[in-house]
Structure formats: structure tokens, C-alpha cells
């Protein structure tokens, strides 16, 4: 078994898997270290929403670039990845939010992202279970939904086919620019090392400015056709944007199985994975405000997960200031699924000195982070 690689990646979630795939496809020898199961962290806990978001120009650029990569490969994925272009509806409750919808339309149009405004009647036709008297929505038809654990597994298999080694069931004890020391004691030496361990990244590389941001989700029984698009309230952006208060925002996803995935919640400082009943209740009440009929649907499971959050809401993709051979690919907050493919590209670009498709400066770990509200 080889113990020396061009790149050693700690973390087999969707970001680590995407990095492995891109590096291996670019001709680098790769090893991925993952205690298991593949995609078992935030990748498993999250919503699998592939979405263009415009909280900042850099976020818009990254999500747009990455979503295009997903779209280009849509037909490649096996059935269990469940890729489906459900589209997103950003739902406006009132005229003030409709103004925001129109502003977004302009931003998306200038970025080449297909979008259209729906008035109240069109919205009701598109999604009959939304409550009456909403103002309308922005429809983004090319946004998609996937099942992330199987997507991560697929990307990793693809990496394996191109020679990557996957050490499943192993934990990385300390990654450094020289390689990864496994908890078992074994040493994997590497030309460069990548910390792609999400919310656990600071435990492996002390000093990374990544905080755990807890989220809750609920999944229902099967109700095919009850919701057609991913539905997100405009207030979701405010919730994701805030860096302090606990918040909830209406966010519902139709799965290919016909089940509905209901979110979303955000909490800092909650370290335990147990369900937080008051937050769960707030989240579900918020969802019922937008879709009263949810009250009658059967919820079969609830769970939590930890996003990896940074101060400026942008991920860390690039070398550590302290150790130029130790790279970070973490801090994706609620956009890890969407931006995983672009992260793989941007990481490989930097390792190989390739010109990236979008400027990489906003995501460099060495950047100065402006704390957002």
C-alpha cells in the first residue's frame, strides 16, 4: 500500500470527495482519509439543494460556477444521486419582499442565471399548497436537488477509478503540510495536504476561523407532487447572513421519493447533536405559516447537523497562511453541496498553478475577513 502521495485529503464528505475527484482527474496521486461513512457529516445532514445565492458577489460567482458544473454533469450521475432540476422559488410574502425579488432578478440576469418573476396567481398555480395572499416569487428553474451521501460516494468512486486511494475507517490525527498522521499511528506523506473536514476542521488545524452552526431538519412520509420546487422564503438570506441570533427560515424541498424535507434553523454555540425542541417547534411553525397544510402531513424523522461557518459567509479554499503546503477546503456553511464541485476545481487549480475559472482571492484563507452583521 502506497504511503506517499501528491495530495492527502482529510475528510470524505462531498467537498473532500470533489477535491479528490478533480485532483485525481488532473493526474495527481491522491489519498482520502475518512473515518466513515462517506458523506457522514454535514453532507448527510443537509438538504442537497444546488442553488445560486447572491448574498455577496463572491458567493454569487462561486455558486453560479459550481451549479454550472453540476448541470453539465446532470446526465452522468447514477439513479441514487437523484439529481433533479426542481428549480427554486424564492417566496415573497409582501410588496417589500417583491421589491427584493425584482432586485434579485436583475442580479441573476447580469450573471447569466435564468430567472423569472411569478405574480401571486402564477405562484399559487405553481405551488397550490402555499398559503393564499403571498406576493409572488422569483423562480430559478435550473437550481436542482440531489441526495448528497450518494453523490459523495459517486465522486469518490470516480476518484478511485483514476487511481485515488481511500482510507475508509481511518481518522486523521494531525494534517500538516508534510502529510497526514493517522490516529492509528501510520504516516501518509504528501506534497500537499487538504483539510476538508467541515465543522471539525479547527480540531485538526487549530486556529481556523470556522464555527459550528447547528441546523435541524424534518422529513415527512411520501406525498408525491405536494411540492414541486424547492421553496425558500426571502428571509432565509437574513437568517443565513446573521452571525449571532438563533434563527429559523422557511425552506422546503421535494425529494425524488415524494418525501418533503423541511428546514431550516441556525444556531451558534450549540455543541450537542440532540434535537432542540423549542427551535424545532419554531422551525415547523414557520413552515406552517407558509404552507398550512403541512400540519396534516406525517413527519417520520428529525435530525441535526453542523454547518462549518465563517465570519464573512465565504468558504476557505486555498493554502493556510502558516503552512503553504497545508490547504483548507472548508467553511462552506449551508452551501457545501452546491459549491463542492467548484471547490474541487479551485483547489486543484491552486495546487497545479492553473488559471481558475473565477477569481480565487475572495476564498483564500489568508484573506482579511470582514465580520458581517
Amino acid at each position, binding site marked *: 500500500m502506497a504511503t506517499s502521495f501528491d495530495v492527502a485529503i482529510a475528510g470524505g464528505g462531498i467537498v473532500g470527495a470533489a477535491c479528490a475527484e478533480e485532483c485525481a482527474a488532473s493526474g495527481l496521486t491522491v489519498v482520502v482519509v475518512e473515518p466513515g461513512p462517506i458523506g457522514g457529516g454535514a453532507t448527510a445532514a443537509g438538504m442537497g439543494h444546488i442553488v445560486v445565492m447572491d448574498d455577496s458577489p463572491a458567493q454569487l460567482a462561486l455558486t453560479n460556477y459550481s451549479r454550472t458544473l453540476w448541470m453539465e454533469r446532470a446526465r452522468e450521475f447514477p439513479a441514487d444521486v437523484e439529481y433533479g432540476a426542481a428549480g427554486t422559488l424564492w417566496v415573497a410574502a409582501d410588496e417589500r419582499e417583491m421589491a427584493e425579488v425584482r432586485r434579485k432578478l436583475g442580479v441573476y440576469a447580469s450573471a447569466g442565471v435564468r430567472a423569472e418573476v411569478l405574480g401571486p396567481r402564477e405562484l399559487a398555480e405553481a405551488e397550490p399548497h402555499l398559503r393564499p395572499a403571498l406576493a409572488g416569487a422569483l423562480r430559478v428553474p435550473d437550481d436542482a436537488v440531489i441526495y448528497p451521501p450518494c453523490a459523495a460516494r459517486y465522486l469518490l468512486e470516480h476518484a478511485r477509478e483514476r487511481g485515488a486511494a481511500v482510507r475508509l475507517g481511518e481518522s486523521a490525527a494531525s494534517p500538516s503540510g508534510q502529510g497526514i498522521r493517522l490516529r492509528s499511528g501510520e504516516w501518509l506523506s504528501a506534497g500537499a495536504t487538504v483539510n476538508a473536514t467541515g465543522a471539525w476542521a479547527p480540531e485538526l488545524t487549530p486556529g481556523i476561523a470556522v464555527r459550528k452552526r447547528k441546523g435541524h431538519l424534518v422529513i415527512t*412520509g411520501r406525498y408525491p407532487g405536494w411540492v414541486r420546487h424547492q421553496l425558500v422564503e426571502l428571509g432565509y438570506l437574513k437568517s443565513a447572513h446573521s452571525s449571532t441570533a438563533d434563527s429559523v427560515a422557511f425552506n422546503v424541498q421535494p425529494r425524488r421519493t415524494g418525501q418533503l424535507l423541511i428546514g431550516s434553523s441556525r444556531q451558534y454555540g450549540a455543541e450537542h447533536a*440532540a434535537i432542540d425542541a423549542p427551535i*424545532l417547534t419554531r422551525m415547523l411553525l414557520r413552515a406552517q405559516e407558509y404552507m398550512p397544510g403541512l400540519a396534516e402531513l406525517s413527519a417520520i424523522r428529525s435530525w441535526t447537523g453542523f454547518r462549518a461557518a465563517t465570519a464573512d459567509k465565504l468558504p476557505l479554499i486555498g493554502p493556510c497562511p502558516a503552512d503553504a503546503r497545508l490547504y483548507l477546503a472548508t467553511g462552506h456553511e449551508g452551501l457545501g453541496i452546491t459549491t463542492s464541485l467548484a471547490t474541487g476545481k479551485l483547489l486543484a487549480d491552486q495546487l497545479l498553478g492553473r488559471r481558475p475559472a473565477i477569481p480565487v482571492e475572495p476564498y483564500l484563507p489568508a484573506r482579511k475577513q470582514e465580520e458581517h452583521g
Partner: protein
Amino acid sequence: MPDRDYDVVVIGAGPAGLAAACRAAECGRRVALLDDNPHPGGQIWRNPAGKAPKQAARWLAAAKQHAVEFIPGACVFDAPEPRRIAVEMFDGECRLGYGSLILATGARERFLPFPGWTLPNVTGAGGLQALAKSGVPVAGRRVVIAGSGPLLLAVACFLRTHGADVRLVAEQASPSALLRFGMQLARHPAKLRQALEFFGTRYLTSCWPVSAQGVERVESVTLRRGARTWTEPCDYLACGFGLIPNIELAQLLGCRTAAGGVPVDEYQQTSVQGVYAAGEVTGIGGVELSTVEGEIAGYAAGGNTARATALFPARRQHRRFAAALETAFALRDELRGLPLPGTLVCRCEDVTMERVRACANWREAKLHTRCGMGPCQGRVCGGAIEFLLGWQPESVRPPVFPARIGSIAR
């Protein structure tokens, strides 16, 4: 239904729960007795006003006399705050407060997969009895009963007396194992066996089903016994391989639990103060043990430790039956070979045995195949996978039964 507070809430109205509720009420406590089934009696005492043992009717009458409040169709899905449970009924929900809680949630059957087990009219052994008691017609139907445990004989006799043509009972345990069991008791399955043979039902030991056949529903079952395999035509295959305690609510409440049941102290109290457990949920032991455990829990929760202590000898005696049960009816290794690679193990999500075997553990199987992620929350596949692969179920999260969103967040 409005939210209410009680001194003692008993969850499960089988023998343990009925006894517990009565004794707690006797102590002067305000008691609620919940069951998710529409009628009290649990599994073994279903329809007690019909043809059930006199004991059942006695306990029901006592419960009425002591003003126990029976809440049927009540499914406990969460414990959202200390000393509070969340309950869903067909037409509503409520939160009930309690001073003490008694878990008498009983046990469910262990199902093992084999080719054809998902066909309509392949049911549990206790399952077919429950369905028949609720009105599913069995008169004149050919029934094969298979699996393991004294339950098979009880079910055979019940079905027989309701007009079913019970062709045979296939018990996987060996005759020597059963003999050890039979020797230990005064009242034991030998009597039931004699009754069966009087009706012409074969009782075969060291015998188990290898596959079921049929198009829209089961039409025949292939059985193995030693070197011999043969096929029996049937209208129902009632098949259960022992019992698994329903410990999920105890887990949700933070009680220490083990696969074999919820550990309790001599007063039937769990590791959580004020939460008691009695009956099959503490370990499979039969109706007499369940009843006396329920009485002890009821007296303890009701504050009468003297009466509880007085029952310790009876409990000790009935525990011997439980120990005998476990060894006699242990499942044999050959049953691990029953499912073929393409046999479904998760019925909710249609996941095959080979897909699950390709995973390293439960967590991986759940994420990558969705086995155990359906509405049964792993209650059916979990018992099978525990036996087949040795994987223990993971910790539980609310809701411990599917519940309407409006019941969870109100």
C-alpha cells in the same frame, strides 16, 4: 384533547400496564392508561371481554372501579420537556404531565427475511392473531405457522378455535431444547401441543420456512426439516421468530437500556428517577411475570412500597420461566442463511440484503441505502439485521413514532 396532568401515566395497556394502573390507582393516585391500539389488553389480552382469560376481565373491571382513565388510540411520540409526554391520536394531540411514568410498552415480533416474505398474507404469528381478533376472517383458511416461541402454539390454538385450518406449526428450535424448557414448568406448552394434535395440526420442531411463493398473495410455503424440504399450500403464513422489547420510548427518555430490555431496580424503576418499566419491555418473560412486575411498579409509583415488596417472591418465581424461555427458543445459525442477496430486508424502502451487506455498519447502510429510514423507523428491519449481521440499532430521536407536523409543533 386538552393537555392534562396526572400523578401516574402508564404507557401500554397490556397485562403489565393494566396491573400497574390498577395498583397505582388503588393507592389513591390519579392515573391515565394509554395504548396506541383502539382497545386495551395489549397483544396477549386483545378483546378481553371475548374469550380471554378471567384475569384479563378482572384487571379491566378493577381499572374501571378505581377510575383509571383509559386513553385509546394514543401514540406517544415525544418527551419534549421533563415530566411531559407528547401524544397523538387519530384526531388530535395533547401533552400529558406526570409525576411518575410507567413504561409498559411490551414487545414486538422479530421478523426474519426469506424469499417471498413480503407477499400479502405473510404476517407475523402474533400478527395474524391480532388481525383475526380485529375482524380479519380466518375461518376456513389454510394457515401455516412458523418461527419460534411458545407464541406459535398459542396462536395455533386461537386460530383453530376461530375456524382456521391450521396445517402445521414449524418451530425452528430442536426437540432437546424444548424439552429443557418443558421440564421447568408446571403449566407449559405440552398442554397446548396436546390440544393441537387433537385438532390434527402437526407440530414440527427443527423446522423453518425457506421461501414463500405466490403472485398477488402467498399461495404456498417451502419448509425445511433436516435433509427434507417440501411445499405446503396455504392462504396465510404466520411467521414470527421471537419477541423484541419496545425500548424506544425508554431510550428517548434517557433511560439506560440494553438490547434484551430496560434494566430496572427491585421496584421496577429505570435509571431515570420517576420512570418505571414493567412487562416485556424489561425483558421477555411471559404474562405472569409481566403482571406481577406491573403490580410492583404500580405500587411503587403509587407510594406503597410495602405492597410492592410483598410481591418480590412471586416475581422471582416467574423470572425462572423467562430464563428458560431464552435458552429454549434461541434462534439457530441456519436462519442467517435464509435471505438471498436479492431478498428485501427493509420493506419501507425496498432495500435488498446484498445492498445492506455491502455496508460496514448501520450508519452507512442508512445513509447509502436508506435501510431503516422509513416510517417503521427500523422496527421491522432492525430485529432482522441485529440477528443477521450483529448490528445494534442506533440511538433514537423524536418523533419515536411518525406524527403529524401539527402535533409536533403546535
